[in-house]
């Protein structure tokens, strides 16, 4: 078996047992990246030299018995919106095209403490704004299952890299579905934890009240182990939550007997692809067969999540992205007349169309006279959506639905109609509004051979129930999804 077929935990085990050295592992993945990157483009930066140096240092610590965790020595790729000291961190934007942070994000520090070797930074939609990874300044990432299709977004680079076997696991970030939707499109497992579980310190903000970092990997075991490594209470992030439990791997049990699963009818109506629908029904049947109690129910307000989200996310983004102005870092326009012209030219040349669209919308909804009608209305809607989920979780342990209405669309088909693209986030977005954890688990492929993902949603701080359901499904189906993507390009 090739090394790139292994899960992160399996590779960690082989490193621990000295079947393979950390340097060898890194070299193998570098070879894999060299072979696949021209087709996939999942990386903005591949740090070969740095990775080999880290590998040697990590190997020494493993040999000295200082690093014993499951991820010690295992390579990882980081979405390019997480700061790493001295390493290019671009958010896939021209405006940060030359930016090298002076500190490292807390989630990455936590991984480094666990012995991770960072091999590069992954491509994304510019500033995480998009659902296809086509808005990157560095060109689109392609879906390894069919390179004529998008990998989803905005963590498309991270998910494609894992699916292509370029790296055993990766970190992504999720503001409205940006881990779960591309995980679903790429046939990998991705978790968006409860808001506040992973520190946002060092994550370049898109929508501060919605952003969460999470793992992307080949299976549920990896994701649980990675989440255990990156989750922490961080005094540098005021919204970081001190949790009672961080032992997510303890939930890796093959047992859902008596677990109550709610299926929201509203997630299976108009707009949902028939193949996706039947795949999810099949997957739910598997869990029912393992002893779960499945029930359908009415989850209210589903259609209001997207408009509320776009008001809140755009408003926060318009403010968060004000700091990119050509003064302190990043791109500054060549020629300008005076200060304000410098601002305008640098930002207009530095940001892409989708980012500008959201900044304009966000600035408008916050502007004088509109704040109450749009922003406060959206925050009130958010409160109502949260209450709907509270009601549902009073009855159910987890909620299951699709992660996206369809499988991965073809490249170039989504950006022309932004509103239609936004509607694709209908099943994922409400979790970010309500702070809930969610994950996507691969459950098969459609007739075109594109992966389908099932979304499992937990109540706040109940990742373990979600992980248990996902792991049980995985055990029951013997990881049908496990093989690495075919890497072919098939015309539709």
């Amino acid at each position, binding site marked *: 078996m090739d090394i790139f077929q292994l899960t992160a935990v399996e590779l960690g085990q082989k490193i621990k047992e000295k079947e393979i050295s950390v340097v060898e592992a890194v070299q193998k993945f570098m070879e894999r990246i060299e072979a696949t990157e021209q087709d996939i483009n999942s990386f903005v930066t591949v740090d070969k030299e740095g990775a080999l140096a880290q590998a040697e240092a990590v190997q020494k610590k493993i040999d000295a018995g200082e690093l014993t965790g499951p991820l010690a020595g295992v390579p990882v790729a980081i979405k390019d919106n997480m700061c790493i000291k001295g390493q290019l961190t671009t958010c896939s934007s021209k405006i940060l095209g030359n930016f090298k942070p002076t500190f490292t994000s807390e989630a990455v520090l936590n991984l480094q403490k666990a012995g991770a070797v960072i091999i590069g930074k992954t491509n994304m939609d510019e500033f995480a704004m998009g659902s296809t990874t086509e808005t990157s300044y560095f060109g689109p990432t392609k879906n390894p299952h069919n390179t004529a299709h998008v990998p989803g977004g905005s963590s498309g680079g991270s998910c494609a890299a894992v699916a292509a076997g370029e790296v055993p696991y990766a970190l992504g970030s999720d503001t409205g579905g940006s881990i779960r939707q591309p995980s679903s499109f790429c046939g990998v497992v991705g978790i968006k934890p409860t808001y506040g579980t992973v520190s946002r310190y060092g994550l370049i903000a898109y929508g501060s009240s919605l952003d969460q970092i999470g793992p992307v990997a080949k299976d549920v075991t990896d994701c649980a182990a990675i989440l255990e490594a990156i989750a922490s209470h961080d005094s540098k992030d005021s919204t970081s939550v001190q949790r009672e439990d961080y032992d997510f791997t303890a939930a890796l049990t093959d047992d859902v007997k008596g677990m109550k699963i709610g299926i929201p009818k509203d997630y299976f109506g108009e707009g949902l692809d028939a193949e996706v629908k039947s795949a999810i029904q099949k997957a739910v049947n598997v869990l029912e067969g393992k002893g779960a109690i499945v029930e359908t129910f009415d989850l209210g307000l589903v259609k209001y999540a997207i408009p509320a989200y776009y008001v809140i996310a755009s408003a926060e983004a318009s403010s968060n992205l004000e700091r990119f102005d050509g003064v302190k870092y990043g791109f500054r326009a060549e020629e300008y007349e005076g200060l304000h012209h410098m601002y305008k030219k640098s930002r207009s040349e530095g940001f892409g169309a989708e980012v500008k669209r959201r900044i304009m919308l966000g600035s408008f909804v*916050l502007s004088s006279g509109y704040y109450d009608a749009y922003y406060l209305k959206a925050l009130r809607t958010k409160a109502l959506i949260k209450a709907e989920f509270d009601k549902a979780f009073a009855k159910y342990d987890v909620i299951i639905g699709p992660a996206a209405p369809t499988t991965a669309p073809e490249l170039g088909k989504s950006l022309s109609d932004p509103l239609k693209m936004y509607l694709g986030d209908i099943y994922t977005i409400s979790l970010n509004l309500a702070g809930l954890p969610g994950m996507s688990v691969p459950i098969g492929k459609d007739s075109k051979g594109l992966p389908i993902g099932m979304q499992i949603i937990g109540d706040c701080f109940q990742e373990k129930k979600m992980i248990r359901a996902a792991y049980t499904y995985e055990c029951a189906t013997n990881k049908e999804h496990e093989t690495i993507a075919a890497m072919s390009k098939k015309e539709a």
Partner: protein
Amino acid sequence: MAKQYETVIGLEVHVELATKTKIFCGCSTEFGGAPNTHTCPVCTGMPGSLPVLNKQVVEYAMAVGLATNCKITQVCKFDRKNYFYPDNPQNYQISQLYLPIARDGYVEIEVGDVKKQVRIHEMHMEEDAGKLIHDEWDDSSLVDYNRSGVPLIEIVSEPDMRSSDEVIAYLEKLRLIIQYLGASDCKLQEGSMRADVNLSVREVGAAEFGTRTEMKNINSFKAIARAIEGERARQIELIEEGRQVIQETRRWDDNKESSYAMRSKEDAQDYRYFPEPDLVPIVISDDWIAKIKSQEPELRTEKLERYKNEFAIPQYDAEIITASKTMADLFEATTAICKKPKKVANWLMGETLRLMKEHAIEADDLKFSPENLAKLVLLADAGDINSSVAKEVFEKIFTDDIDPDQYVEEKGLKTVNDDGALKSAIETVIANNQKAVDEYKGGKEKAIGALVGQTMKAMQGKANPAKVNEMLREMLK
């Protein structure tokens, strides 16, 4: 008859709090320092950085709110105020709009014999901006973020003031309260207290306010008075000419003694405030308020009364000493060491005030230590130095904070108490001043003064004049 106009003034006062660190990061707030040395990712707006609130800022703000009779907002939040300017690294200022920490207070001011209340609309916490230095030669400005993120409270008054005298009384009252609380040093020159003046005029007796303008960042009491007079005159002139006062922000140029509009198309004053998602709400319990209240130090009025009762200091002296926190602290610390409150008060009321005038400095800028003043008081009191030597020594303390024991020793200024030396000096003086001796003996009491003077001269000033006087009388019997 010419129309009579009334000036209506409200103030927005920014005060830098006396915390050791900035409001949202662990950088030092120390004034000065090479550009950008007191900075970190948070206060330079680096991508990925996040703010964490300094608890001391909340406690100082609560203390000022309580001391100015405000109601504390028990659930308060921060908001973002969005505007682009290079001194503001995030291009938004973290401030408070919707739920400021304190509201509905007042302070009492006195102008002449008239007492009145100036109401405080609200008080909020926010971060200061960096500093811009304008390059003379290049067409550029330089940005230093050392001050970026220094905590501020902004105290917004109601439009309750009617003259520059009232404005200055209000500012002085605020300054004293805040200094006494230890929440800020309130130095206008260094910018740790800054005032924006909102001013309108109306005909006396009119019910409605006129259109107001805002003048920003005026940095001395005198400049504030001039700015008020200047803006009042400008607005009256506009009205008399039948023109409109435009609601706008103006900058007062104290050199030209005139203000100019700061408007530009690019400065749409639309700050798009919204709740700061990176900070969580502050919930202030009754217990916390009670604790801050109980920690409130003695404020001026109580201190003044105590000085009169405990130390028998006259009203006038107590007023002057307590008019500056620095001076009151100096008085108390010195008294605690030497246990001679009246003597200490005399030094402050006499020589200190005289030298302050001579050196043109404010009480807040007094630099000498209570230890050295106490030593001087004790030296003089013990008769170890005479009063003219003491004045000379005090000048040195005032300017250089010298140690008086060491100074007197080194310069040999100690009073000579050796009776033998003094006796022989007096004998010489008697021998050489026959005329004065005769006059004294002839009943002319005043003549003794000349003899004392001669003896002091012979002793190079180091004798105790009272003792010289006494011995002379004895020896001339």
